[in-house]
């Protein structure tokens, strides 16, 4: 607990309160194959000296949290004053990197989680009613999307939905629109990412529900049959109540899982249309100039997001437990 949860959180919180030292510039002459040119350069020695004095950098309090890359208080205030309609205000908010990521992440989480629970449940019911001999094979194939590495899975789909790919060209024929491109439109990219999300995570829900179905009380089921309950009524009044605790469990795990959506955005090269909290942290940390403070700030905000998101489920669990005691 201390090593793997508490310390990393302390470290990102601390990092998010600091920014780098002011850089000391010197003008130097750089020469390469193509000639010499005067340019600014960071005086590494002077900067190292500053670093030794204050190893963490400059303390800036919460200002990292309110700058444009994060909560953007100034930009939001300006947008609120200067926009006429709610639509314009939404556009202005959506233009800010953190809000854009939050909007996508939440939409993804709340669309994908219920859909995958429903789909997983349907697969579990269907597989459970199969003949004993077929079950093993079908279970294996149903689990494949979960076994395939997320990045590989998304790459396969990425090529299939290319405008020259099998799914992409089929859709062009279907809608009779030769310029239709799933990758060029933001709404279609979102739908594609969510379909991928459901495809990838449904097997998890399926496995859990299928295991739950094996513990179904047969006598209740039989007495329901004797009472003349139809198949649908048996599912509605016997199976579903039996599986409800598992739904809470799957929802909890999948909410956390979907909230950190990342791989499909990379796999689908979808950065132009969608960004998630994880993907903006990754962008901050990648490349030649790493923005550690910015990444830490987003991480802290993500942690707060996870806490808010899970609080209803956690509260419920706590209450159940309280009642039992």
């Amino acid at each position: 607990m201390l090593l793997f949860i508490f310390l990393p959180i302390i470290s990102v919180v601390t990092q998010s309160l600091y920014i780098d030292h002011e850089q000391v510039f010197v003008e130097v002459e750089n020469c390469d194959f193509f000639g010499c040119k005067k340019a600014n350069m960071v005086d590494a020695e002077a900067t190292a000296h500053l670093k030794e004095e204050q190893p963490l950098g400059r303390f800036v309090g919460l200002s990292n949290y309110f700058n444009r890359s994060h909560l953007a208080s100034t930009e939001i205030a300006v947008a609120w004053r200067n926009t006429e309609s709610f639509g314009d205000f939404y556009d202005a908010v959506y233009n800010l990197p953190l809000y854009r990521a939050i909007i996508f992440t939440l939409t993804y989480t709340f669309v994908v989680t219920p859909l995958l629970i429903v789909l997983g449940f349907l697969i579990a019911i269907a597989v459970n009613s199969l003949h004993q001999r077929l079950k093993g094979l079908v279970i294996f194939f149903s689990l494949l999307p979960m076994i395939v590495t997320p990045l590989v899975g998304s790459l396969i789909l990425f090529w299939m939905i290319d405008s020259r790919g099998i799914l992409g060209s089929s859709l062009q024929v279907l809608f009779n629109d030769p310029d239709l491109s799933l990758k060029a439109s933001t709404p279609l990219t979102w739908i594609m990412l969510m379909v991928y999300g459901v495809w990838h995570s449904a097997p998890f829900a399926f496995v859990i529900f299928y295991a739950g179905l094996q513990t179904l009380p047969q006598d209740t089921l039989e007495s329901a049959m004797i009472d003349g309950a139809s198949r649908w009524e048996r599912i509605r009044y016997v199976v579903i109540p039996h599986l409800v605790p598992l739904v809470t469990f799957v929802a909890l795990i999948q909410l956390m899982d979907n909230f950190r959506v990342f791989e499909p955005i990379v796999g689908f090269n979808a950065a132009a249309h969608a960004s998630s909290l994880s993907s903006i942290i990754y962008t901050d940390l990648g490349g030649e100039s790493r923005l550690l403070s910015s990444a830490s700030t987003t991480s802290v905000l993500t942690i707060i997001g996870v806490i808010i998101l899970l609080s209803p489920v956690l509260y419920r669990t706590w209450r159940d437990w309280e009642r039992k005691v």
Partner: protein
Amino acid sequence: MNRVLKAALIAAGVMSHSVAAYAACDITGGRVNIIGNEFPAIQTVGAGAEACAGDGVEITTNLTKEHKDLQVPGLSGETAEYTVAIVANSSIVPLMNEGLIRPLDDLIAKHGGNFNDKQKISINGNTMAIGFMANAQHLVYRKDILEQAGIEPPKTYEDVLAASKIIKEKDLMKYPFGAAYAAGWGIAQEFNNMFLGMGGEFFKDDTAMPNVNNEMGIATLNMMKELTEHMNPDFLTLNNNEINAEWKAGNVAMMQMWGSRAGPLLDGEGSAPGVADNTVLAYPLTVGGGTIPATTLWWDGWTIAANISDEDAEASYLAMVNAIDPSIMNDEVATQAVWMIDGYEPTPASAGVFATIEAGAKPYPMIPYESLLHTALGDELPDFFSGKESAEKTLSDVEAAYETAAKEKGFL
């Protein structure tokens, strides 16, 4: 007795080995670990360094596309993980900013090396890197398609637009133009190219204040937008690899491509029939009536980490000198890049890069805050191309995003 014999045999083996290694690269001991980008020319250099491995000298390489993410952490710390970083004129900057690479003048004075003075890349009077190849993006065209359309090879981006229209009208191709416009680094680089061609300067007179939100920036975006009308509609997701695949499939008639990727385009492997034979590596394009080519010049070279022992630094230096020795040149290696090594004879694959150097293209700026602007462009430009925003709004977002990052890094 037996044990003594074994020990003696092992000792003899070790000695003969180290003598062999000594003969090859003059390395007596130490550790060499190389981080760098991954393309054929760099793989050749990496293999050249590995050839110096022997007893007491351990040489490993990590050549990966993720090198930019790894190099700064990999060269930091009391003892750096990597002793050599193969860098370009953009990626040397973060290493210089943090003081992670050492001047090579002492090592050159002590050990010399079979390279010419032009290869020494000096910053503030110190040789910080030894360059071995030049690179640039330039026009590549299909001469058969242009002939069928009855048009001259384009010299400017305006010509490309006109040519694309004709090719489409004559129904020769659906999307005649290609360039790596994928969101992120790629599209930002194309902006940089076009912006320089328009005569733009990225920063306000020697400060870190951005200078892209002006008429030149708007003209740049408008020209790029017009070009995208002749590109595969998925352009915001297509990187160099995908564009090259499109080219090889015969779906593109003109493209902006890196010289370092020319070899595979010409060798015909994996290309549709007739594509490779008609591929011409041309020259850089200009734009907006300007004379400066709308592209940037790049070099690749190697640097040696500062935070390593002198023994490791010497071993690294000697291994890298061996890796770029003129003797590595052969027919295959020569097509991999535009080498700046003595004894390199230009091949058809290098024509475009040489034309770019001759045309007076500007090098990609070696400025500490350039990469922050590059990242901001990569993040914000897609909004303009997906039609969400006007050019002015996008450019003001770019400047705002850059300023936020530059404040955090202490540049503003």
